């Protein structure tokens, strides 16, 4: 991909820059769409209509208007806060989340970086988001923000274990950490997808999905934010575009775990119909629609389930997810040995 771009562009650095910015072209419109979709889904699940006015058709441009509003807003920095950390945290959050897109194979022809340790890289680099949330909560000099930030670190440190073990089950089955190779291994029809590889990988997917919900702070695991008790948690003190960056990160993270889930279990950019509708462009389509499906499920869950209590959150992780994940890992390995 970079080589192709270099042939058309005057400078190789320009080609590299465009290559690096390509996921942004997908992520930004996706975030605008997802925020709108979240509003519509939540509204219709509560028998409301949601935004209907802005832009004409079902309020399609509501998030664009909101984004323009946020850019115009005053950038408030609390006087007793740690100014540098406070200002830097939202950017670090998006950096951490965007960096992970580098190893997501959007199509058979496009992947940001051909890393052989792609899956490991994603799990490692997304932890920067936690760090930035902790930074934001601490720098705000606000007890609710700090509580939210501490909940985040406790939650993510705990839930990283079942996530990693669930991803590891896939690695045991495929024998590679390279996400492009994992995608290529699942090409063919829908039955070549890893979710149908063995019953234990299906359990691994369920574990992965639950713990990834917690990783991206979605309901029922949205204790770091918990608008009703912590008034927004770590981003209480943020306003304007800095707050917008956190929102962007949250939705980009949702997209990231959904894409990773579809790469690991649902064939990535592969068409479910074999050769029909497959190719580099269709690959992008399948990848994004698979991601959007999981995002819809996340929204669906959000408007179905209430938030867990802190002790219930830890119970779910340590008493249920982690034992299941480890037993499941052993069973996946046995399955691979026997068959």
């Amino acid at each position, binding site marked *: 991909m970079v080589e192709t771009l270099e042939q058309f562009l005057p400078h190789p650095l320009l080609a590299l820059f465009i290559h690096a910015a390509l996921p942004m072209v997908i992520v930004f419109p996706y975030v605008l769409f997802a925020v709108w979709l979240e509003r519509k*889904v939540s*509204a*219709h*699940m*509560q*028998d*409301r*209509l949601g935004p*209907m006015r802005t832009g004409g058709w079902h309020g399609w441009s509501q998030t664009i208007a909101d984004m323009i509003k946020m850019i115009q807003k005053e950038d408030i920095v609390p006087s007793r806060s740690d100014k540098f950390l406070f200002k830097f945290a939202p950017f670090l959050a998006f950096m951490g989340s965007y960096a992970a897109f580098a190893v997501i194979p959007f199509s058979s022809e496009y992947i940001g970086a051909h890393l052989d340790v792609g899956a490991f890289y994603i799990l490692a680099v997304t932890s920067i988001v936690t760090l930035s949330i902790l930074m934001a909560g601490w720098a705000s000099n606000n007890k609710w923000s700090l509580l939210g930030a501490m909940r985040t670190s406790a939650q993510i440190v705990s839930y990283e274990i079942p996530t990693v073990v669930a991803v590891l089950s896939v690695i045991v089955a495929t024998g590679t950490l390279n996400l492009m190779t994992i995608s290529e291994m699942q090409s063919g029809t829908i039955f070549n997808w890893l979710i149908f590889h063995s019953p234990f990988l299906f359990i691994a997917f369920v574990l992965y999905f639950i713990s990834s919900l917690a990783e991206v702070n979605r309901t029922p695991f949205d204790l770091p934010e918990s608008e009703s008790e912590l008034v927004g948690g770590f981003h209480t003190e943020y306003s304007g575009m800095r707050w917008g960056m956190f929102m962007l990160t949250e939705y980009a993270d949702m997209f990231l775990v959904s894409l990773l889930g579809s790469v690991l279990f649902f064939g990535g950019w592969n068409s479910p119909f074999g050769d029909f509708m497959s190719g580099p462009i269709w690959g992008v389509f399948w990848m994004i629609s698979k991601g959007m499906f999981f995002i819809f499920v996340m929204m*669906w*869950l959000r*408007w*179905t*389930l209430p938030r867990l209590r802190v002790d219930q959150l830890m119970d779910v992780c340590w008493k*249920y997810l982690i034992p299941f994940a480890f037993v499941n890992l052993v069973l996946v390995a046995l399955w691979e040995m026997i068959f």
Partner: protein
Amino acid sequence: MKRYFKDIWDSFYTIGIGMGVTFRHLFTKSVTIQYPDVKLELTDRARNRLYVNMDDCIGCDQCSKACPVNCITIETVKAVPPDDLGVTSTGNPKRLWVTKFDIDIAKCCYCALCVYPCPTECIKMTDVYEFSEFDRHNLLYNFSTMTPAEVENAAMKFEKWQADKAAAKKETTDKKKAAGEKPQPKKQETGDSNKNNPPDENKSES
């Protein structure tokens, strides 16, 4: 141990039920009414903006007396012969010029207590509820159909009639011809700027 697995099963089962409920509601008709485009029909006895049909008003002042917040101001002048104001649609004879009929709708508490005493049923509640204004003074509705000139004329005639009655009763027949043409109440007064037009009965002013 059995309890442990039962808990897991129960949580998945109940989440499934909950998701089924939310999924059904995703496709049920929403209860939202797109207000400016779609309006709910008001009930028959809904109490909103007051309207006075001045053709039927006999100036009896009962609505003003009934008003708990004193938002109705009525001034009347007795109509003198030969002016005949006719009868209302309910058959009551009109004996007074209603020179002023102001309702300060900003004060109005929509109790409808003024509606019940009206003998000719000329003051009533309409279903108009969109009449907000930028200036509070625009909410002072003048329902009287008389111009200041007509009011002055009527007052003058009444004074003259009283004076004449006091002076000599036998001369009244001669004076009648000299009193000039009788004023005609007009429906709309356009040239007069210090007077608000009375609102239409069924139309909101936007």
